């Protein structure tokens, strides 16, 4: 007799109940909603804002449903898309730039399911529509910046310690110092060696040339990793703030590999606008204006950004760079003129304090550093003329203001012109907070209509494929075929449930993976049934069923493990959509083994297990 123990049935039942429960959220429709957050990313939404919004919407008789606070944002739900758009316009017109409003589709998962951790499957950008960017952080520029800082530090510190040097410069990311005698040389070398010992290991690679009294210093791999991690980390933070300005409901900003950053903006339809805000490859430098005592070697002339004719001489040394700026906003001073409020981090504040304490009355300049590129027509080795793009760095003064007092972590710049100009300056200051320039190395934009089309076509293929397989299995294997079909359906439910639970992303190739799983999942049952047919030739039906399942298991197991290996490798090498394919394929392999072996067997046992069979039609 073929019977399962009560425990086996319980296990199957538990898995299926869990599968159904977590697949369930996908059946609830989405509801139009908007998310409101303060433009100032340092400020989180509160009851005050909630009341404001409530009043504005009530005053304008805009229909809305629930309204509540969630993760620094206020979520408002609506009955229809029209209500959603109307309310957005009303709110935006009233609150202007104070808030950022993002349109969204909120899932309507009931509370009891939410409490269990239930949520619908996340859709990839190729299904939801939106923009995907891959940005590369220019580490060399960050390294160059660090070296310049180091050059400055050592010039000062050698002077303080009375170590003479004749030459100092930076070439090919190497710091170069030449000394007049071996005494200075040795003192400098000792200094380098002491400074080089960091917490994480040796910071410098020192090339010694005692015969010519030259010391060359390079960053070690440890130091380079620190620089890279810092630059990428800083840029990530800045990018997150910039992305918030775009008003996207569920953006993704993530590091990828050593020096790349992925930005995904679901629902964004205008890649140009998004790129403008994200791709601002700008940096800032605060420098003192040169005065009569500054030696000509220590000063540099710069243009003003809004005035091509005016120039000013600034000191070469940088007081604070843009990566120390944590925030910048506009306001009004006591007499009603516009001003820009700037906040620095602790380290920036200390440097600012040191630089300004002896220099009240002098002017402090803000330099805006942009990476630009220009194209040139050049002739290559084969004699063809090709366009070559070279990037260069342009530095312009955006503000030059008199220092009124010793400055710390937060200070203000007054006399910045019209409120419009003030807000532009604040925007530039915020935008400039990048540690190293970045460039776009990949972009994929999917329009909303294409996303919708992809979902429809994908679902259609799953249903048609499923129907065809079900029809064939029923005709070919009769009762056993029906059991296999039920298993196939359970398999789809389990894949959906597991993907929802894991928070895996469904992509178009992912849907294709599900379709493929539907076709391949019956393989296990086909193997089992074929084996039972064979066993029937020499054995009675019950033994044939038992041996058929047992014999086929080894084969099914081996065959699936190898496919799983291929799927795992696909997951490792793939990006975005292809990863989605690897995920659905892997999940599908595991669930199909469970349903085809356990579930089908349970059904066969329930149908035939207790009967005294003389013959079996399969």
């Amino acid at each position, binding site marked *: 007799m073929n019977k399962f123990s009560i425990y086996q049935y319980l296990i199957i039942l538990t898995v299926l109940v869990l599968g159904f429960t977590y697949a369930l959220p996908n059946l609830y429709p989405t509801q139009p909603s908007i998310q409101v957050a303060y433009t100032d990313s340092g400020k989180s939404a509160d009851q005050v804002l909630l009341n404001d919004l409530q009043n504005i919407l009530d005053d304008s008789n805009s229909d809305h449903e629930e309204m509540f606070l969630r993760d620094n944002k206020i979520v408002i739900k609506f009955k229809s898309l029209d209500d959603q758009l109307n309310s957005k316009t009303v709110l935006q017109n009233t609150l202007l730039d104070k808030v950022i409003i993002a349109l969204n589709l909120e899932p309507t998962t009931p509370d009891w399911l939410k409490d269990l951790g239930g949520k619908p499957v996340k859709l990839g950008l190729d299904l939801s529509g939106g923009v995907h960017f891959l940005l590369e952080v220019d580490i060399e520029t960050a390294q160059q910046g660090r070296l310049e800082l180091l050059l400055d530090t050592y010039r000062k510190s050698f002077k303080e310690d009375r170590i003479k040097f004749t030459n100092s410069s930076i070439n090919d990311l190497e710091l170069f110092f030449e000394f007049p005698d071996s005494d200075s040389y040795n003192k400098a070398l000792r200094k380098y060696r002491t400074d080089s010992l960091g917490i994480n290991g040796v910071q410098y690679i020192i090339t010694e040339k005692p015969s010519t009294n030259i010391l060359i210093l390079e960053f070690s791999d440890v130091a380079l990793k620190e620089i890279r991690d810092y630059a990428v980390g800083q840029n990530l933070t800045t990018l997150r703030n910039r992305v918030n300005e775009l008003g996207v409901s569920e953006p993704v900003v993530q590091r990828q590999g050593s020096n790349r950053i992925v930005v995904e903006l679901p629902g964004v339809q205008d*890649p*140009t606008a998004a*790129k403008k805000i994200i791709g601002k490859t700008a940096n800032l430098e605060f420098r003192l204006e040169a005065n009569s005592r500054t030696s000509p070697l220590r000063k540099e002339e710069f243009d003003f950004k809004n005035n091509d004719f005016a120039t000013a001489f600034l000191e070469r040394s940088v007081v604070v760079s843009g990566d120390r700026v944590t925030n910048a906003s506009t306001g009004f001073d006591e007499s009603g003129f516009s001003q820009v409020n700037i906040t620095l981090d602790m380290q920036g504040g200390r440097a600012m304090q040191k630089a300004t304490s002896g220099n009240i009355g002098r002017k402090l300049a803000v330099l805006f550093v942009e990476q630009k590129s220009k194209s040139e027509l050049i002739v290559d080795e084969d004699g063809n003329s090709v*366009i070559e*793009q070279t990037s260069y760095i342009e530095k312009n003064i955006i503000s030059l203001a008199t220092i009124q007092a010793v400055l710390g972590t937060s200070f203000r710049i007054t006399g910045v012109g019209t409120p419009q100009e003030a807000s532009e300056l604040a925007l530039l200051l915020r935008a400039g907070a990048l540690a190293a320039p970045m*460039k*776009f*190395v*990949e972009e994929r*934009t*999917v*329009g909303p209509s*294409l996303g919708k*089309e*992809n979902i429809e*076509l*994908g679902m*259609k*293929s799953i249903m*048609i*494929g499923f129907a*065809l*397989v079900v029809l064939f299995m029923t005709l*070919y294997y009769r009762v056993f075929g029906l059991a296999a079909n039920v298993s196939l359906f359970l398999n789809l439910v389990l894949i959906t449930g597991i993907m929802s639970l894991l928070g895996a992303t469904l992509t*178009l*190739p992912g849907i*294709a993976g599900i*379709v*493929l799983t*539907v*076709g*391949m999942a*019956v*393989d296990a049952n*086909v*193997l089992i049934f*074929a084996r039972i047919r064979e066993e029937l030739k020499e054995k009675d039906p019950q033994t044939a069923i038992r041996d058929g*399942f*047992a*014999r086929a298991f*080894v*084969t099914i197991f081996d*065959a*699936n493990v*190898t*496919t799983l*290996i*291929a799927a795992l*490798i*696909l997951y490792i*090498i*793939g*990006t975005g*959509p*292809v990863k989605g*394919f690897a995920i659905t*394929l892997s999940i599908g392999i595991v669930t199909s083994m469970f349903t085809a*072996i*356990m579930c089908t*067997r349970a059904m066969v046992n329930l149908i035939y297990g207790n009967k005294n069979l003389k013959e079996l039609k399969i």
Partner: protein
Amino acid sequence: MNTKFQFMKYRKIAGITSIAIFILSVFSLSFKGLTLGLDFSGGTLVEVTYETPVELESIRNTLISNGYEDSQVVNFGTNLDVLIKVADQNGNSSIGENIFQLLENNGFRGELKRVEFVGPQVGAELRDQGGLGMLVALFMILMYVAFRFQYKFALGAVTALGHDVVIILGLFSIFSWDFDLTVLAALLAVIGYSLNDTIVVSDRIRENFRTQRELNPIEMVDLSLNQTLGRTVVTSFTTLLVLFALFIFGGEMIKGFSLALILGVLVGTYSSIYVVANMLMSLTLTQEDLAIPEPEGAEFDELP
């Protein structure tokens, strides 16, 4: 199914055919190469959909007169959809938006469906990663099959996989179909699928070698192939059913993907019958190779 096909009678013809197609594929791959899709070649792609059909020639002329000489303009799926591809221009990432703007300004008002830009370095990296992934997959599978079966089976399985992959790549090269990341994904899925088939057949050959001691190797392989034929045909059939559903209804974006899989299932089914068995015959698989009887199936009997 109680078939008694003498598969191995045709093994020489099958072997020669396989080798011929294989060589043809290698030739095409080395001289013509693959038509690399955007993922691997780098560059920019713009898909625009229009309310009424537009003349591709006039779009092409607009592009050429504005400095995009090296561009391809084709219909995508329907004649309302236009796909424009431009080769990489030193990593410039705004070409897509510029082209859409340019077309709008010249009276081609449509809806932007998608823009893709892949920088040259990312393209090269994806290319290297893809190739490497393929090799790693083949190697790991070789190890697994060698561990579970025996090295002759492993060699047979990997030969079959190499055969499938090269022939599908060859077909993509010969017909100049676009080879992109999704096709590579399909190819890896084919490796998985084809192996599935191969293992089922190998498993049966191994079992028969141990139990049917009176048969000679050719009869043994024939018997095994016939025993598994029913299953092979049914599984390939159901898989092809869903793949055709995907090919016909799944939309333009996964046409290449489903095509690669359809070819993969066909070639994979053939190779699991002929290539593996042929390899085993050539390597003269003997009873001694499988002499140490593993506790086959025993440990699993307790499981349902």
